[in-house]
């Protein structure tokens, strides 16, 4: 087929228009949040003292970290969804800095003998399981959304989508978990979110190429 023939066919196909990457990502988020909530409520519940815990700084710090991760990664995903998109460095730096900062404060506040127990906590296994499980469907939604866009670095975009799904899943999980120490969050949440990031990177590599 000559290129001119192809151009004729392309020029005749003028009617179908897909939504902009921002709109596609926004829709994906609107779908992913209730999905994550549903899976969370099937396997876990918010802890019984959820309301009373809201005046605990440690409890709130978990949401500060997870929501920051979700927001910055959503922002980065929307940018990387375009061929010309670049993700700004600060969106990757913000959450790690926050995690380290809050963990360092906790480290200084806690008496020496209690630091390691606080970090290891009681819920490491469930944390490592629940966050990937809650995040898996949202990640699927984000990968489908990326397929409709045009990221020129599919594996990177998939990894970021995995981190975004991790931030969302961790937000729900944090309402259940009774380990509120930032040291616990820094260790186990990071590992659990990292699982989703790896899955996202592979999914990006395999399914997002266009």
């Amino acid at each position, binding site marked *: 087929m*000559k290129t001119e023939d192809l*151009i004729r066919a392309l020029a005749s196909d003028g009617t179908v228009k897909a939504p*902009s*990457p921002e709109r596609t990502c926004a829709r994906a988020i609107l779908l992913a949040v209730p999905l994550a909530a549903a899976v969370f409520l099937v396997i876990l519940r918010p802890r019984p003292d959820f309301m009373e815990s809201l005046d605990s700084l440690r409890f709130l710090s978990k949401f500060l970290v997870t929501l920051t991760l979700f927001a910055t990664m959503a922002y980065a995903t929307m940018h990387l969804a375009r061929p010309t998109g670049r993700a700004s460095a600060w969106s990757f730096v913000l959450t790690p800095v926050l995690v380290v900062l809050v963990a360092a404060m906790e480290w200084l506040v806690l008496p020496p003998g209690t630091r390691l127990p606080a970090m290891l906590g009681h819920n490491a296994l469930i944390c490592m399981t629940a966050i990937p499980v809650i995040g898996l469907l949202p990640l699927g939604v984000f990968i489908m959304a990326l397929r409709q866009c045009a990221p020129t670095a599919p594996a990177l975009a998939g990894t970021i989508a995995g981190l975004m799904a991790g931030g969302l899943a961790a937000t729900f999980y944090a309402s259940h978990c009774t380990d509120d120490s930032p040291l616990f969050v820094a260790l186990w949440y990071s590992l659990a979110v990292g699982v989703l990031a790896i899955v996202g990177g592979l999914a990006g590599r395999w399914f997002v190429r266009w």
Partner: protein
Amino acid sequence: MEQELAELMRAALGGEDVAYAAFLRQVSGLIRSFVRRKLGAGGPAEPEDVLQEVLLALHLKRHTWRASEPILPWVYAIARYKVVDAYRRRGQRVVVDIDDLSDVLAAPEQETASERDIERALSSLPAGQRAVVTSISLEGRSIGETANRLTMKETAVRVALHRGLAAIAAKFGRT
């Protein structure tokens, strides 16, 4: 060039097929010389194949261009992605330098007929889509004429054309 192409694409997104064809023709000239230079002699793929793949990608991903931003960086980002993809499929790595774009000009190079990747992708389409795509591309019929000849509704022809082109893009180079 930038201004003109952006104008054409804006008109195209507004539904002007003539402007769109003009855009694609002009862009072909740019991409052809870009792709030839990047692939070089004995490269991983036929330049014309990669050019056609880029055109399909530009078409199917045109909603990822923001009408307020320059169009050439968007065009070259997609072209670069497809060139890198061609090398990747042959198991070679290549780094495409953005600086190389500064001297890209629409060289008056001759178009060559490509009988390879796109023909293979076309032949693997379902019969209905293949008939529609062939009628409009190779045989040069309009949507209306194709609808008449195949006794289909125009909307069905449009849908088959769009799906056929998307399927060709998905299969391109995967075989």
